[in-house]
């Protein structure tokens, strides 16, 4: 998973423009724009109900925005969905592993869906599992794994087709602190290697203190976009967590749960 299938380019890996989404009268997202380049680690910070999950659903093609466009590696999600999705890896908030199947069977299901030859898939699976210390779990049924290991398997899976854009949706929910740190560190290491751009959606500030950029989203609106230090400065140099809380409260959009 160290070599990337896409040529290094100055073009953005993800370009989302003016996204809007409503559910009936409730506005979930309003004029949200994002741009990520290879190697970027961008945190999408927002309290529960901020619109993070809706944004993730749009970026992963599960929902279609009411307005705006999404391009992954220049491929439009609405008109060229298969090409756009080929460049996307996702770890959803809710586990998407088949608990009855083994780790390897789950991973092969994914590589087959992505059209990867079995011999190549097996090599990548072996390497991915080894990188995350899961080589002994290869044939274990997923239901026998701990929550932390399941998340690691999902990360391995999300990277098997060597995507340029990695989407992590509240990926550490339910994990103990050690597993949480391990997962966060893995993704930071990946982005620092320049092979992928990652968008990390979370409401836990400590997970994103080292991110290149932070986007604070609340009630479907971007309240802040800049560096983690910039977020603190904007609120008078207080801690990032307090700045996040203050920003949400100041704008009258509630505070994180």
């Amino acid at each position, binding site marked *: 998973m160290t070599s990337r299938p896409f040529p290094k380019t100055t073009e953005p890996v993800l370009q989302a423009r003016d996204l809007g989404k409503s559910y009936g009268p409730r506005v979930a997202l309003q004029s949200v724009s994002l741009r990520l380049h290879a190697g970027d680690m961008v945190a999408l910070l927002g309290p529960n109900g901020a619109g993070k999950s809706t944004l993730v659903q749009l970026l992963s093609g599960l929902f279609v925005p009411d307005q705006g466009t999404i391009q992954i590696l220049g491929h439009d999600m609405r008109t060229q969905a298969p090409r756009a*999705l080929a460049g996307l890896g996702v770890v959803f908030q809710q*586990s998407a592993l088949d608990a009855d199947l083994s780790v390897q069977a789950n991973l092969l299901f994914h590589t087959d869906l992505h059209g*990867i030859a079995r011999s190549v898939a097996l090599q990548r699976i072996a390497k991915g599992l080894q990188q995350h210390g899961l080589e002994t779990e290869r044939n274990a049924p997923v239901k026998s794994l701990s929550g932390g290991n399941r998340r690691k398997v999902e990360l391995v899976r999300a990277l098997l087709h060597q995507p340029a854009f990695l989407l992590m949706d509240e990926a550490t929910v339910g994990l103990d602190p050690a597993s949480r740190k391990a997962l966060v560190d893995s993704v930071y290491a990946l982005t620092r290697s320049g092979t992928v751009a990652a968008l990390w959606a979370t409401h836990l500030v400590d997970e994103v203190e080292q991110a290149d950029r932070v986007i604070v989203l609340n009630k479907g609106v971007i309240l802040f976009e800049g560096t983690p230090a910039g977020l603190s400065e904007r609120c008078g140099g207080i801690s990032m967590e307090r700045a996040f809380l203050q920003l949400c409260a100041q704008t009258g959009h509630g505070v994180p749960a």
Partner: protein
Amino acid sequence: MTQTPLLMHLARALRAVVGRELHKFLRQPSRLASSLVRPLLWFVVFSAGFHNVFGVAIIAPYETYVDYKEYMLPGLLGMIALFNGMQSSLSMVYDREMGVMRLLLTAPLPRGWLLGFKLAGSTALSLVQMLVFLAVAWAFGVDATWAWLAALPAMVLGATMLAALGLMLSVHIRQLENFAGTMNFVIFPMFFISTALYPLWKLRESGALWLYQLAQVNPFTAAVELIRYALQGQFNANAALTVAATAALSFAMALRGYDPQRGWVRHRA
């Protein structure tokens, strides 16, 4: 970027979806057993109780008086496909609740292909169970003929229609708990208001004209009659057309339901 040729990609994705269905099925021997026990009970118990149900009537496509077991056989094959189609619908709902559906819907292939593979998986499972039941029927005294081989396409088409119906229903079943409703409102009416257990003239003769008319338009009747004619080495064009049209319509509605711009995933995923 090295791209896999489309045909190769489709073949691998087909292996993934159908292989998973078969793998899960084979890991649950109780599922095969229960799918066979249900029609077997009808086959053994009902055929004993209703042995003389037809009196001296000769019913098309049969050219002579037939044993009730032989009459029931196509209906019970249809029953297997009907239950399996609905079970596949349940499996889609389960995948949705467990999150696996998201994986499928974010695969880099047009959604129509992925749903088509699901359809193929469900049809393959139905066919396996129907073939096993044919062997059971033979063991219980129904004469096997070469026409049974020629009936394979009819069985595939019937199973495809019922799998497509299941796929369409999965769009609307929100939770696993709703499956009981599917049993009561879909499976039982489709099965009982059809020619699976009794010929249509029996309904007309009993004066239940509205049941007679319902059974005539029931696509399950068409599936059963298609298989019945095929098992006798004959082709029922009307039934084939009805089954094919119902399959196409159901699949089109399922496609619409899973379209993020128009259907189910527009609201939930």
